[in-house]
């Protein structure tokens, strides 16, 4: 049972994503910001996939990715950035930080699930 780890400061996003993923049969872990996510990661959480927002208070999604990639358990974990941010330089920044993909909100549920199936087939 490897969960999907959602990191977003928007409670509505957390709630809707949780609903979608749970309905699709996945288990979900949540964090409302970067530091909280790091704490959970350091506490031994081993998700099959991380989906993080870009703009969050305290730490951006890309900074979180950099921190996560430093941890052995997250070196190869796929990480998707789900954000409203549309600028190319931010994407490039995310890519070089080790992100697996970039999704611009709003993403249709079926497309999201398809991407998840593609990048994290072991997630349950």
């Amino acid at each position, binding site marked *: 049972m490897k969960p999907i780890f959602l990191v977003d400061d928007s409670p*509505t996003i957390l709630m*809707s994503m949780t*609903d979608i993923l749970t309905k699709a049969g996945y288990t979900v872990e949540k964090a409302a910001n970067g530091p909280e996510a790091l704490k959970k990661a350091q506490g031994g959480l081993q998700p099959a996939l991380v989906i993080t927002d*870009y*703009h969050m208070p305290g730490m951006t999604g890309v900074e979180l990715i950099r921190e996560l990639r430093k941890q052995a358990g997250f070196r190869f974990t796929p990480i998707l950035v789900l954000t409203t941010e549309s600028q190319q330089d931010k*994407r490039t920044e995310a890519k070089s930080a080790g992100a697996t993909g970039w999704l611009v909100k709003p993403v249709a*549920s*079926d497309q999201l699930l398809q991407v998840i199936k593609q990048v994290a087939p072991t997630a349950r």
Partner: protein
Amino acid sequence: MFGLTISEWLRLRALRRLQLLDTPADPRYDRITNQAARLFRVPTALVSLVDSDRQWFKSRVGLEAPETPREISFCAQAIKGQDPLVILDAANDVRFANNPLVTGAPGIRFYAGAPLTSCDGHRIGTLCVIDDKPRSEFTDADRTQLVRMAQAVMDIAQAQYLPVQRMKTLVGVGLGLQILVLSLLIWAFGSTWVDLLGMIGLPVPAAMALATAGLLAIGLAVLLLVLEKFTVAAAFSDLVPKIPLVISGESYSGKHADEAIAAIDEDITYSRSCLIKSGITEDLDNLPSLFAARRKHMEALEARATSAAAAVSDVPGFCDVTGAHLRTVVDQTENAAFAILGQLRDIDAHVVRLVDFIRRSDRESTALIDGSGESIARNRDCIDTLQRYLEERLQDAMHDRNRFSEIVQVADGLESSIDAITRILSATNMLALNATIEATRAGEFGHGFKVVAAEVRELSQQTSVAIRHVHEGISKMRQAINHQINGQQLEQKVESERAMLTGLTDQLVGMSDRFHGVAHYQRSLLEELDRAGQGIAEVMMNAMGQVQFQDIVRQQVDSILAGLDGLRRFNDSLAAHLEVGGDGAPTDLKAVLETMTRTYVTEVQWRRHEEVMTGTMGRPADGLPAIELF
């Protein structure tokens, strides 16, 4: 001499610089006045200089008085305009009809005066021609001629401009002194100088001449410069009128007056250009109206600044309210999003239950369809059994009828026996009666016989009754049997029962078919419902995804809030700027807008921005895919 207008002060200064007032007659001017008198065929021609309180005539033809008061002067009026003042008949002119010079001596009727304009633009007086007879016309050519002659007067006046002459004299003296000093120097240090020049290889006489010329030229230039600066200034300072210039209760004289005038002049030029720029249409050449217009304009500006300051003081409140509204929008959309998600969850739960129910019902209906076949077959078996039972019962009834017929035949046989017995009993009764009669005749001897006969008769009667009972019993039995064994009735009954059974069978088969139909319909209905349920689940999943809009709205509103903050800062700086004595320029609103763009996250924000503002502002590239896997 207080309260001179600046222009008048300047004009008087220009007049006095020329140093013509109260000087002896000059034939050069007289030639011109004489020429003018002849040319325009008038008795009087004057070069009139308009002083502060009088007009003084530098040259006059046909007039004795050297000066007249300024108040009644025609020339004082003529210098107000650039063009010549021409009065064809002063008696008919409202401005001059009551002038003592018109009503009394010298009885002026015709007047034409061209202003004498100095090289720096001041009208110091006029060249005028006067007649005691009115004129009918003064042509343009006459005017031109008069203006030219006035220019000639000024040419003479300015050519003998004293400071220039004085300067020239001084320069001449200076030059002589220079040459003298240099000659002495060369004589004193000549040999050393020649040696020095010889050392650098120049032939001595040429070098000496060259050096002397060079030194002379340099010395001359320096001297000229010095002379020009000091001597001319000294000359002018002597000439500046000693009238103090009073501006706004403050006296200025000499250099300070010049500075004050320059400042005022600059201010007037600036004010005029400002007023023109502001679209003020009043007469701005006239200083009082210019100042009045400026005061009005300043007051209007001040009032506008005050109202603007009052207006901008409301902006922070406006920003606060707008910001609060926007934050409420975010809160409300968040609550709405939660509510939508909650309702979607409820709907989902209902749909899940519905789909479960539908699937369960589908299984049950399948089982029912499968089970219904067996029960119909069982029903058919039952009906077959019933039909067989009915056939058997018919057979039994036939048998019974035959047996009953036999019984009836036996009963019929018994009937004839009963008839025979009845006849026998009737004969026996008759015999007994006859025996009794005979016994009675026999008397005593027949007494016993009589008893026997009576007994026989009694027996016979009793037997007759019994036989009647038997007969009745047999009749009833036969009737009953006949009724029972009536074949037609029985067959009809059997047939009707058979028809009833067939109808029942048909009904059962029909029911079974209908049940099958209903079951299949129900099944397809359930399948359809199942598909619809799955469709609803998918739509709901998408609806859950669409709730992301709230997060997008939140971030867009955050941008607007950042913009509002910037606007507020801009307003603060504007308010400080508008305050009297406030310093600094207001914040650059473009910079505020640029700060706001840094908070843009969605492409649509950039697009909207560019739709409103022309030009790009480092916006992200268009057409990036919404999903990109690296």
